[in-house]
């Protein structure tokens, strides 16, 4: 039965995601909010690969999100106007940076690891902020836009057609989600669960723990830089806030809110976070206080997040 429930949940989630342009406007919103949710969901799921499935907390994922975003934006603006090329460069830059920084911090654990991820994250924030000639500093990288996709036989106008862009983002999201699910179900993925559950036992099963944490970190940062590249394309703009520490915090909040032990938890968390933000920020500037309150309540009373609660209900 639980397996059937899980399958049904997957089908429901994909059905809802695929039909967003049809039902979201009926719910009084707009497609762009759906795009927003999917981009952030990918970032939060990427973070959760490390947090929920390897048991390692990063408070610096915005750095690699932001590198993906800046890489895409600057490539399209200065190098060559191509959406796929921009994404490719962004993802390579983000992942490469993560690979190098990972080597330096992978032996740290718990709060020490988290602190170092923040510190390295802020390094990139200040580079983006100060290096005005290249990054535009506080003003960000503007005066460029995503380029319609040229598929040879036809071209998809992801620039002017919000539905087309939504489906483009969803396609990238689907590939990434499938890849993460595939990895998590593999023997390699199980070594990550082993590290999360009990590092000492994992080590004494012959698993080189530091190396596997490094790999999980790089994989996680790879996917978060994909999300970052999509984020830049979505806004046709990027500024240093994309890689500031509070952005990292938002990813963690989304993952924990939705439930970090479930694959779709971060998606639910991102949806709740962004819908609340969208709704409350139209009434008050202090929207973050309300999200903060909601977050505290969830953590206090439902430490497994929204999906964790639903799962327990169905189990009992």
């Amino acid at each position: 039965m639980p397996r059937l429930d899980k399958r049904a949940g997957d089908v429901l989630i994909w059905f809802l995601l695929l039909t967003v342009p049809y039902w979201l406007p009926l719910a009084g919103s707009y497609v762009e909010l759906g795009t927003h949710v999917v981009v952030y969901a990918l970032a939060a799921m990427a973070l959760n690969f490390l947090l929920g499935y390897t048991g390692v907390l990063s408070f610096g994922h915005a750095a690699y999100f932001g590198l993906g975003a800046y890489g895409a934006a600057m490539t399209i603006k200065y190098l060559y106007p191509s959406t796929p090329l921009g994404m490719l460069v962004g993802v390579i830059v983000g992942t490469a940076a993560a690979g190098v920084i990972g080597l330096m911090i992978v032996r740290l654990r718990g709060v020490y690891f988290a602190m170092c991820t923040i510190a390295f994250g802020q390094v990139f924030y200040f580079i983006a902020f100060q290096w005005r000639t290249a990054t535009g500093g506080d003003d960000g990288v503007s005066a460029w836009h995503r380029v319609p996709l040229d598929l040879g036989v036809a071209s998809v106008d992801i620039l002017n057609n919000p539905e087309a862009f939504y489906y483009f983002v969803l396609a990238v999201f689907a590939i990434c989600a499938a890849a993460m699910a595939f990895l998590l179900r593999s023997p390699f993925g199980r070594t990550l669960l082993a590290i999360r559950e009990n590092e000492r036992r994992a080590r004494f099963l012959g698993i080189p723990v530091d190396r596997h944490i490094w790999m999980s970190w790089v994989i996680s940062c790879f996917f978060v830089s994909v999300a970052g590249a999509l984020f830049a394309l979505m806004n046709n703009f990027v500024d240093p806030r994309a890689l500031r520490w509070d952005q990292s915090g938002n990813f963690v909040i989304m993952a924990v809110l939705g439930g970090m032990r479930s694959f779709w938890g971060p998606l639910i968390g991102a949806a709740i976070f962004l819908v609340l933000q969208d709704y409350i920020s139209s009434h008050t500037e202090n929207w973050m206080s309300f999200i903060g309150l909601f977050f505290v309540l969830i953590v206090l009373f439902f430490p497994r997040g929204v999906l964790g609660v639903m799962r327990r209900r169905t189990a009992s």
Partner: protein
Amino acid sequence: MTLLSVEHVSRRFGSLVAVDDVSMSVEPGELRAVIGPNGAGKTTFFNMISGFLAPTSGRIVFEGEDVTRVLPARRVWRGIARTFQITEVFPELTVRENLRIAVEAAAGYRLRPWISREAEAVVSTRVTDLSDRGGLADREDRLVGELSHGDQRATEIMMALALNPRLLLLDEPTAGMGDQETYNITQLIRQLHKDHKLTIVLIEHDMRVVFGLADRIMVLAEGRLLAEGTPQQIAANEAVQAAYLGQAA
């Protein structure tokens, strides 16, 4: 050939000498017990063999090769597996998943993003076999964290066994268990020793267990080797009696 030879190892923690110039040699197929009063340095001694701690001085030779500075994971690859005094398992995974991770680690699949259907079947058969032999067959889909202490310990021992060790180190396998559980675990250890000619070194507090199982016994007291010999010799040894009575008094 001697399987494991520990040569004059010592370990200091600041000014405390936890293990002081202890040597031991273990032959293949032997079941060796290490006993001693609390604070005798048994676990420290064990930790040096498994690579959890580095000795301050001395050498550890396994199958003719010096492993004194070899990392824990690599000692596992060479065939040294261990359990811990406080059971170390994956509590939020099922018994099957626990065993499966161990089997896959032993098969060298730890980096594989996928395995073939045939390999999958082999892994699954091996997991079933291990859970049967550990007496866990009827609860293999339960989370290990929900099982009794004895079943958790059995899971841990079977995980260590999944690694196909040539030397199995058991740190107080019956610690904190009731009579029935102690009996079950003792039977399990005896069975593994008999079926596989597996070399086992164990630390134990429960004297019935030690004298019922071990071929040879080594006694540590205050970090030093106090005596070594067959169970009969140890039972008759006056120094050993004094050490234990001294502790009781």
